[in-house]
């Protein structure tokens, strides 16, 4: 197990380094420098500014300086706003995004898994078709359409929830559902297929033959085996939640990372975009690392294989 974790960890570090390098060179591939299009500045001031941002040094020195900054967790400065750094933006937005993300993952896992389990036990029944329709919609309809519709019906027409904003617990529900819906659809479909596959196995017959009750079989044997593959796709799904939050936070006006990120995209704030992207990439790679390790703990076959 130790070797497995160490190997995953080294992979994670290499990935992070590659991303940091790509971000750095992309940023420097942009034409001009940050000060070419501002008001006419005397050459001395430009020289001073360049010295402040380390832009007067050779590229390779800048590169190592940048790597050092990134390793210390300093992700860079905004081009549009003075005194605004990527870190300050993340500090302001991250807690809100995390609340929203956790709520969405919670909704996704809870409803997704329970829908999948009920659909599998009720194969070809009413609830099964409900889950199939849900899965199809979740795949076919973009999340911003769902978000818009929710806003229109549940907030404007029925006024059950606030339309937009971020002032209390009621403000979380609509965006979290809109964000988690795709997760519900995926999980439900996957859980159902896995359950049906597991139920066809011989050890389920054995359990039945030795007189175990139906609920005990489902809880002890079917669900525990069927849930394993669901965990593997958690990594990509968390990525989907995070990127989905760009859209959802913008629509619902939530002051999270996603909204700031979209704002900086629209303001052509290059350093901000690349710095944030780096943070997101790091976050997601770390998540995938955690999921891999969790999977290694849960499923002993993985450790033997590798």
């Amino acid at each position: 197990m130790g070797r497995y974790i160490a190997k995953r960890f080294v992979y994670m570090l290499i990935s992070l380094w590659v991303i940091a390098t790509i971000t750095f060179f992309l940023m420097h591939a942009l034409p001009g420098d940050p000060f070419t299009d501002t008001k006419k500045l005397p050459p001395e001031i430009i020289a001073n500014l360049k010295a402040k941002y380390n832009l007067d040094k050779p590229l390779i020195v800048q590169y190592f300086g940048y790597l050092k900054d990134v390793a210390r967790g300093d992700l860079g400065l905004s081009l549009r706003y003075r005194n605004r750094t990527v870190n300050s933006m993340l500090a302001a937005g991250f807690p809100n995004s995390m609340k929203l993300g956790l709520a969405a993952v919670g909704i996704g896992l809870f409803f997704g898994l329970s829908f999948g389990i009920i659909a599998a036990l009720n194969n070809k029944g009413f609830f099964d078709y409900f889950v199939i329709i849900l899965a199809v919609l979740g795949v076919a309809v973009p999340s911003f359409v769902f978000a818009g519709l929710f806003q229109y019906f549940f907030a404007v027409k029925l006024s059950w929830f606030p339309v937009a904003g971020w002032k209390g617990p009621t403000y979380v529900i609509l965006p979290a559902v809109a964000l988690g819906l795709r997760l519900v659809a995926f999980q439900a479909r996957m859980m159902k297929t896995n359950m049906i596959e597991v139920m066809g196995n011989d050890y389920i017959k054995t359990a039945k033959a030795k007189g175990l009750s139906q609920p005990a079989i489902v809880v002890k044997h079917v669900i525990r085996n069927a849930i394993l593959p669901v965990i593997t796709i958690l990594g990509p799904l968390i990525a989907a939640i995070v990127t989905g939050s760009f859209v959802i936070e913008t629509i619902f006006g939530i002051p999270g990372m996603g909204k700031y990120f979209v704002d900086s995209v629209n303001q052509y704030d290059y350093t901000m975009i690349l710095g944030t992207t780096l943070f997101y990439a790091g976050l997601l790679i770390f998540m995938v690392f955690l999921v891999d390790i969790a999977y290694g703990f849960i499923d002993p076959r993985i450790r033997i294989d590798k």
Partner: protein
Amino acid sequence: MAETSENKFEIIGKSAKDAQAIVRPSLTYWQDAWRRLKSNRFAFIALIIFSIITIMAIFAPILSSHSFREGDLFLMNQTPNAEFWFGTDELGRDLFVRCWMGTRYSLFIGFVVAILNFTIGVIYGGISGYVGGNVDNIMMRIVDILFSIPYLLWVIMLMTVMGRGLHTIIMAMTIAGWGQMARLVRGQILQIKEMEFVMAARTLGADATRIISKHLIPNTMGVVIINVTFAIPQAIFTEAFLSFIGLGIPVPHASLGTLSRDGTRMLLIHPYQLVFPSVIISLLMLSLQIFGDGLRDALDPRLRQ
């Protein structure tokens, strides 16, 4: 009593010769797949819906008398009527034409990206899988590391640097997207190259070019084509997402993504402006997904029960 002897009997059923005759026309792999696809009702309906959308995207903008880029400011935000079937937008442009122009862009992006990913993936994955050994190891580690970055972040990063536009969207989505196809093709090639018929071909003296072009690549095509059908909706989805966060096709052009974004802005006042583009995008996604599922059943007989 009459004597029975062998020559008094006559064979009236099949003769031994006829039993060996091939009665049904022989079907190639693709004919067989098409036959199976036709019998799958859902996939066939999906194919029809997809064809209708494609035909509309090609012909509706040509045949319509309205322009997608010029509007009439006296006719802003008209609800759907006989003149403007889908209504008009906030600049008085006809939404019917704009929706189908948008579909055209979305489909174009979807197809081009899928084909480019397919080409790069087949070449890279093919080499990696066929050569094997250390080359394979290194080539796949490169893919592993490059594609540990989430797809959308990759695309956003590249779009930021390359600027907005049709070409940059396609480029960014290709650079960020070929890895999956490469992995898939490599896995297939590794599996197939160990099979007996490849060994037979080698024993008969076929060289590497012939084995690759006549045996390995045709046998991976089924799985690869299925994945291309799924790559098209993914590309359309990604484009819509990029448009939504402001990295899409620049105005006055439109894609289904930019139209939906404009629609959500106007949702509270003019809901019809979101309905049409989002219905088209959903139908498009749905029909491609279902068609892809049907194609998988038709092309991969191993999955059949």
